[in-house]
């Protein structure tokens, strides 16, 4: 799996772009399997870095979504309500929400694509 270098990653398998779009990684969608349900906050909701902001469900599992950074939700990808399988098809294109970053420097503390890839391979090694 390859990870775009235009964004940052978390150990909880989310990605966030500089413009505040948030999604889950290709690795996360692969672990979950067929995604059937994505529950997201409404526009205006305040996200706190490291806290849960939604849920993604596959046929077999329920997984919490953790905010990679703090900020208010400005947009929600409504397409995922009816076509959650888009996350399986291209997890790095299927953004879930967009936030107005409270403190853009928060992204500096997150993983680069290379670091995330390394983290995933180490996790798999256990």
């Amino acid at each position, binding site marked *: 799996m390859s990870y775009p270098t235009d964004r940052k990653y978390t150990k909880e398998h989310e990605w966030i772009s500089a413009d505040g779009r948030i999604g889950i990684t290709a690795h996360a969608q692969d*672990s979950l*399997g*067929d995604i*059937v*349900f994505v529950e997201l906050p409404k526009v205006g909701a305040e996200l706190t870095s490291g806290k849960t902001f939604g849920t993604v469900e596959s*046929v*077999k599992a329920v997984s919490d979504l953790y905010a990679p950074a703090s900020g208010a939700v400005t947009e929600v990808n409504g397409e995922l309500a009816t076509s959650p399988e888009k996350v399986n098809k291209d997890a790095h294109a299927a953004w879930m929400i967009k936030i107005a970053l409270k403190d853009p420097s928060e992204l500096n503390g997150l993983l680069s694509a290379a670091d995330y890839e390394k983290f995933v391979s180490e996790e798999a090694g256990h």
Partner: protein
Amino acid sequence: MSAVPTIPPDVSRVVRKTALNAVHRQMGAKMVEFNGWDMPVEYPAAIGCGIVNEHLAVRTGVGIFDVSHMGDIRLAGPGALDAVQHISMNDASRLAIGQAQYSALLYPEGTFVDDVIVHRLGVDDYLLVINAGTREKDFNWVYSNVRENMRPFDCLVQNLSDDYTQIAIQGPKAADLMEKLNGNFIDVPANKLSAPFQKLRIDADYKSLKFYWVTQGRTMAMRGSDRLYDSGTLIGRTGYTAEDGFEIYISSDEAISAHVWFGLLEAGKEFGAVPCGLGARNTLRLEGKLPLYGHEISDTINVWEAGLDRWCKMEKPEFIGRDALEKARAAGLKRTLVGLEMIDRGIARDGYKVLDAGGLEIGYVTSGSPAPFLKKNIALAYVPPSHSGIGTTVLVEIRGQGVKAQVVPTPFYKRPRKT
């Protein structure tokens, strides 16, 4: 003073593997621990798999499952029928040779040791196919109730669980697939896991094998023109998917198990055969309302609550659990298993609370999932009889919210009958 050294209990847990474990790993299956077994939950999307695709293949074509983690107990000898009658709730005296029946082993309380399929293989020869998670418990329970009595039954009790690789071939095209292997060898692509075998056939009279009957077939494997393997194979027209299908019991030798697995997939290509994991097995059985031990049935749930009356023959004068069931029936039901369909957005999961329309807790979900073929979110749940009527609205508590669901008829899915 002499100290008796105490030996600490062995706390190491060995996760068990079926003879097909290396095959699953080679195919890239996602592996999980299930009841102490390292099993495939689903195969990769890259080969057309994933729970949804595997599920749909079984509803429309055919799917191949490794179910070798299931256990097998044989009771044979002059007292075998009496023993089976004593330990199981269905009436095994009705079985003709070659016939099978769904049944259950019960505790004296009328609750479940396990559910089983009882196969009559010969005059005094019965095979009980049991669940993976309850293998040891079941065998010990059967052995002690059959052999360690004041008057032991005159039969042997054998644990054959490790002798077989059990493969399920399930779906409307299962019979076509098996027929293709019947009477002629097919070439199976070379694979280091199935070497040295190259060709496979599995002969049996599939056409006259009816649902819930078993027959003795014959599996043959060749390398070039050498017949390296030739062995009798038990073939049952049974399954756990609510479809037509077969369960075959071959030697647990790794190479022959792999050869049969690859051979089934090869023969099944034209019928859309895919390998299927435990994920699809669970969603398929849920659509068909087939109970899973530890969920719909357990040592605290009785036969009436689980709604398995049809397979419990109270006209039998005696079997373990009968007296308690008699009393339970007289006392009336306190809870009953119902099917739920989610009305509002949300997926009920195992263990979630069921609330009445006013928000009062009345029961719990035993199994819940999206149903890939029905394309609905469904669940099985225990609720009081007062809330079990078809059409009753209840709430399922999902992450603190009561989400609306409705009691619906079960099974959720019934396979279309062939005309």
